[in-house]
């Protein structure tokens, strides 16, 4: 870890704290990471979603652990046990709706977090590892969400599991082996549900592990910021506490209102009616559609006429994200100073939304053509447009410092005081 940040300003006060700190300096670590840690003073509200995501992860784990106390991962009992939770467990309906909608809110927050990253160039040096850890967390989230959606063992659970495990069979050589390993048999059935439940319980703790690495990797270079320039003096920074804690807290409460809207007033809106029909291997639903947060990838999967090609494109659409630090050839981080990239960023966002909409539509006629065009554009954005813009774009002049970017040149009159004290240099 960077010595600079952990040459902590924490001073143990009590005799016990001194004794403990000399044996396990965890209080100093926490203090330097979440109290004195210097953050750029110009972080906007898009930077508060890391905190929101952390709270969502904890909430999902807490509600999930309690739900697991009442849930039965057995094919003939799973659906009934979920209904038992909904009807007979005290506040079971609340736990389940929090957990189910919590997954959606988790993805809302992570998409804002990812779009913020791509807009302000947070993936660029020296934050590549931090960024790739984020892509890994996102992949783990997707796996966890997919596994979780199968657990109520409704029609969409069953057929979603069938579709996704079937596409894995397209992988050459090992595909069939992976598929039967996941199934635990020759089709989706009780063994599948057992292992999906086990994995659904396991993966969130792996996410916690990678989140710790993600935060660690963040605390080495520190936060990027809307100006995309480094902290140069104490004037550019404020300590994490109380400035970011209070700002993150405010943002979190607003986010919770949004969350509560779904949980209490439209808890089934983001789900599928078909999942209130118990799984029936003999009846295929008219449209098998994944949850909204998977729709763009589902559109990409179906856009490619070849099964293996579709699988490659779908996974490729996430792998390409991990390569972004090297595909972006511009030296400037923030899109604020990148007039061309800024335009293409928003076009790409619109293309993602279109892909999401197409993912919910049947794969026929004009929809397929549109999905192919959008898929091609999605990849072209990263593989062609991003590298080229770096060469042709003339960035706007960067401000000399974060303080300058905030208040214009000659902003030296801002009081710095205690705010800058814990921070000597970048």
């Amino acid at each position: 870890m960077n010595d600079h940040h952990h040459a902590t300003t924490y001073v143990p006060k009590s005799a016990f704290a001194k004794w403990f700190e000399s044996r396990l300096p965890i209080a100093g670590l926490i203090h330097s990471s979440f109290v004195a840690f210097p953050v750029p003073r110009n972080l906007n509200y898009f930077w508060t979603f890391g905190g929101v995501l952390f709270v969502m992860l904890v909430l999902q784990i807490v509600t999930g652990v309690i739900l697991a106390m009442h849930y039965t991962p057995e094919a003939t009992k799973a659906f009934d046990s979920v209904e038992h939770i909904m009807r007979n467990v005290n506040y079971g309906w609340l736990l389940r709706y929090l957990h189910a909608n919590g997954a959606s809110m988790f993805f809302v927050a992570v998409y804002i977090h990812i779009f913020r990253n791509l807009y302000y160039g947070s993936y660029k040096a020296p934050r590549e590892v931090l960024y790739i850890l984020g892509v890994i967390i996102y992949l783990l989230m997707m796996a966890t969400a997919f596994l979780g959606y199968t657990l109520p063992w409704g029609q969409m659970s069953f057929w979603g599991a069938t579709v996704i495990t079937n596409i894995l069979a397209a992988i050459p050589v090992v595909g069939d082996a992976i598929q039967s390993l996941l199934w635990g048999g020759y089709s989706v059935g009780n063994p599948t549900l057992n292992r999906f439940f086990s994995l659904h319980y396991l993966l969130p703790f792996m996410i916690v592990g990678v989140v710790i690495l993600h935060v660690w990797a963040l605390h080495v270079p520190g936060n990027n910021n809307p100006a995309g320039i480094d902290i140069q003096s104490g004037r550019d920074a404020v300590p994490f506490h109380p400035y970011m804690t209070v700002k993150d807290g405010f943002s979190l409460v607003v986010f919770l209102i949004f969350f509560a809207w779904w949980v209490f007033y439209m808890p089934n809106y983001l789900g599928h009616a078909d999942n209130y029909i118990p799984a029936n291997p003999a009846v295929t639903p008219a449209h098998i559609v994944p949850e909204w947060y998977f729709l763009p990838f589902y559109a990409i999967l179906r856009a490619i006429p070849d099964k293996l090609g579709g699988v490659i494109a779908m996974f490729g659409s996430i792998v390409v994200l991990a390569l972004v630090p090297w595909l972006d050839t511009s030296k400037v981080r923030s899109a604020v100073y990148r007039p061309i990239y800024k335009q293409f960023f928003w076009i790409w966002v619109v293309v993602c939304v279109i892909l999401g909409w197409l993912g919910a539509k049947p794969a026929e006629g004009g929809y397929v053509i549109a999905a192919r065009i959008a898929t091609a554009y999605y990849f072209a954005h990263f593989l062609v447009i991003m590298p080229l813009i770096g060469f042709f774009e003339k960035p706007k002049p960067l401000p000399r410092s974060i303080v300058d970017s905030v208040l214009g040149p000659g902003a030296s009159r801002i009081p710095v005081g205690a705010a800058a004290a814990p921070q000597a240099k970048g």
Partner: protein
Amino acid sequence: MGKTMTRAALLALLAAGVGMSEPAFPAGETPVPPQLKWSWQGPFGTYDRAQLQRGFQVYREVCQACHGIQRVAFRNLAEPGGPEFTRGQVQALAAEYKIKDGPNDSGEMFERPARPADRFPWNFPNEQAAAAANGGKAPPDLSLMAKARTFERGFPWFVWDALRQYSENGADYLTALLVGYKDAPQGVTVPAGGFYNEYYPGHIIAMPPPLSDGQVTYAKGADGQPAVPETVAQYARDVTAFLAWTAEPHLEARKRLGFVVILFLIGLTALMYFTKKKVWADVGGEIEDRPGVKTV
């Protein structure tokens, strides 16, 4: 230039949405169920007790012959937020049903009258028996039906629905289905054992028209008249309301708690906002707060 391109992209998105929502679902195939007014709509919605009681009566006298509500226990009928029959009524009602229990000490299965803790038994011993008696397909359990059916709303209505809390699509569909029996239009042949229904996907439904005017006799008021008309439309709405409750028995508690939670969060938001303002004032305030200064 920046604004123009963003706007062009948004327009393209809109055009795509409007232009393409048509071909996959040809207009007129299946009409969209009308959106009815329900007492449990909106943030303060509650079930109408009298309507749930009438709906239960319709279920019992009409639907129960074929369809179960096996996830519902008799005791639920007396619980708050539902039809709220008295405990005495529920006890008497349960006693009219037979439950297969056992084995007893001599290893025999036996029948006994139901107790409030029991769930509603189905008229058929199993799926196969129900299928055999109903032309090959078992009539589905109705406990969750109001959440297990819906209809396509499409862009941009689904955005509007989220804002106005439209969650009664299942109920609207069920009522539309129950009143949607019609003579088949010219050129459509209805196979034997099937019936033409305007709102059923594919239109050919195996369930015969279940309701007819005057079929269920509602309790009379002081004036000797029932409080609501004894018509198919009214029966359909009442039984739909009852099924909305069987599907979501804690809806009232959920909405009540939701209001308190959101009120609390709004209060907390205000406190957090002013706390944040005060804290950030120490370092010259937040960038967004400075008038006349270019923000990033």
